[in-house]
């Protein structure tokens, strides 16, 4: 089985083959022998072949939390948490073409991360914005949270006003 896995800024191609009691996992062309045990629905104990030795002895205690999109996980490794997207081989390539998906570049719909109140709207339709520039401030959990632009662009439309209450996922404004 071969997957395309996006983690950090890179998409890795990973293939997994069962060889008797162990798995052979090939990542970026290098094959690792892995002895994998599921310790719960969402946690695994992995013994991974580390470069030099032949025996799979590097102990990796990995846990997983499903994200809303099927195939997306938070992976927990020794106190670190990494967002990972697992797809069938070729998927990301296709996504790129139609400009959607994790690494696409289409218009950015800025959604409310949670139910809250719009405290301030910092831009108006037509404004050009830079990456990480503040767009709108939402108050929730006793804190004011500034939503920023993912990249340079132009504000196409603003769909909320100050003082307005919004639900999670509500479209606040669109940057193109």
């Amino acid at each position, binding site marked *: 089985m071969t997957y395309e896995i996006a983690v950090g800024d890179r998409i890795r191609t990973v293939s997994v083959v069962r060889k008797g009691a162990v798995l052979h996992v090939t990542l970026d062309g290098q094959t690792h022998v892995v002895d994998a045990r599921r310790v719960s629905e969402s946690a695994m104990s992995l013994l991974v072949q580390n470069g030099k030795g032949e025996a799979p002895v590097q102990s990796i205690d990995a846990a997983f939390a499903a994200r809303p999109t099927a195939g997306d996980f938070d992976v927990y490794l020794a106190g670190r948490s990494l967002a990972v997207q697992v797809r069938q081989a070729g998927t990301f390539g296709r996504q790129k073409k139609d400009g959607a998906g994790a690494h696409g570049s289409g218009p950015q719909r800025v959604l409310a*991360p949670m139910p809250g109140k719009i405290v301030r709207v910092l831009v108006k339709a037509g404004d050009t914005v830079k990456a990480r520039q503040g767009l709108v401030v939402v108050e929730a959990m*006793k804190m004011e949270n500034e939503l920023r632009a993912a990249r340079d662009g132009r504000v196409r439309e603003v769909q909320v006003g100050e003082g307005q209450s919004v639900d999670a996922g509500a479209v606040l404004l669109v940057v193109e």
Partner: protein
Amino acid sequence: MKKILIANRGEIAVRVIRACRDMGIGTVAVYSECDRAALHVRLADEAWPVGPSAPRESYLCIDKIIDVAKQSGADAVHPGYGFLAENEDFAAACRDAGLIFIGPSPEAITLMGSKTAARQAAIKAGVSVVPGTDEPLSDQTSDADVLAVAERIGYPLMLKAVAGGGGKGMRMVAAPADLPGALRAARSEALSAFGDGAVYLERRIMAPRHIEIQLLGDHHGTVLPFVERECSIQRRHQKVVEESPSLAVSTDLRRRMTSAAAAVARGVGYTNAGTIEFLLDADGSFYFLEMNTRLQVEHPITEMVTGVDLVQWQIRIARGEKLTLDAESLLTPKAHAIECRIYAEDPENGFMPSPGRIQGLRVPQGPGVRDDSGAYEGGEVPIFYDPMISKLITWGDDRDHALQRMRRALAEYEVRGIRTTIPFFKWILDDEDFKAGRFDTSFIDRKLGGNGSQLQAIEPAHEDLAALAAAVHVFTRPARRTSDATPPPSRWKDAGRAEALR
């Protein structure tokens, strides 16, 4: 005292319940709609509903809570911190209802609750304060007038809510031009957080440390100070890492700061637990900042270095007991302790709150580790309240030992399904300046440079491991959709965040 009502929620309610258990005292929890299945409800002897999820309609409703206290036959009330903990009306309402309020007198709360009155009290006790306005500036005061006052104090200066606390309604102002905007922001925040838009100005001490002194005062005239807490590691003026003792405080300085703190408390006839916060200047001079007339979030580090259970002593003092603790030993740390506040925030997305269902939870165990938490596997972190879900405390022979144990504990700690600040603390603990104790209150903002981007610097090796693990997980996962492969509805809010901040 037979039965105590805990007028709070989450981890601090759980903490107080445990102290009551340790004393054989019954516990009454209160809960809002979204907290019906919260841990403090599950662990208490009784649990009474107090209304809808919004704090104003439940945990901040004095009448409802007093009413429950009476109905349940509680004879005392512990306010925890936050919510009504520093509300003099609540303390008075308890007294009027014949309930023992486990905290200071309403008068003390009123006096020290006003930042400006508190400054007067400090000055009266011979303790120096940060130069600033002595009178509150109501939200009627014109920008022009405020600018005039600011001129006298000098820039850069701090703009603070008179009723403030926890960094809310607080802004740093570098130059006159920034004042009006900051004023507007501070007032709106203060108004929504405390229902009072009044602010005051203070000169900004450059590169100060935030050092605070825990105090206990009984009803027999005794006030005892404890070894200091170092609370300079803050984000948005919110403490995130605290330790005790402080590397910056010598035995001599400790004597001076603790006696200054005790003097202020004695001056106002303070009782029960309280904390006096100081700014410690690079030159070793210190200024009274404010007094918190309640238990502090970071109280456990003091407990671990002195062996004193502060919540238990709050209760003993409230029922009239004499402070029998040895004053000398309270100033002699028996260990070094550190606390990390675990927040339901995403450090890699500008610390955006991350409420939702906790799909999985692994709490660190073993020697020198304490976790005061309000979370459990399957539990919800609601959107309505402060996002702190747990306080992780470690201690050891010395600072290095405590830090090593914290690294170990953070590596064992897993909170799955929501994003937390756990990775953020790993990053702080590995910072060379932090390790060397070279920091002041601007540490985090300086390091983060306004955004969390540095945090994303994860070695490719870990990305490879994550990719490998995820592939194996998907490859070996049982065919049927498992409970946590199907995202709970609440997770959808992350989709919004992920997209908004992509």
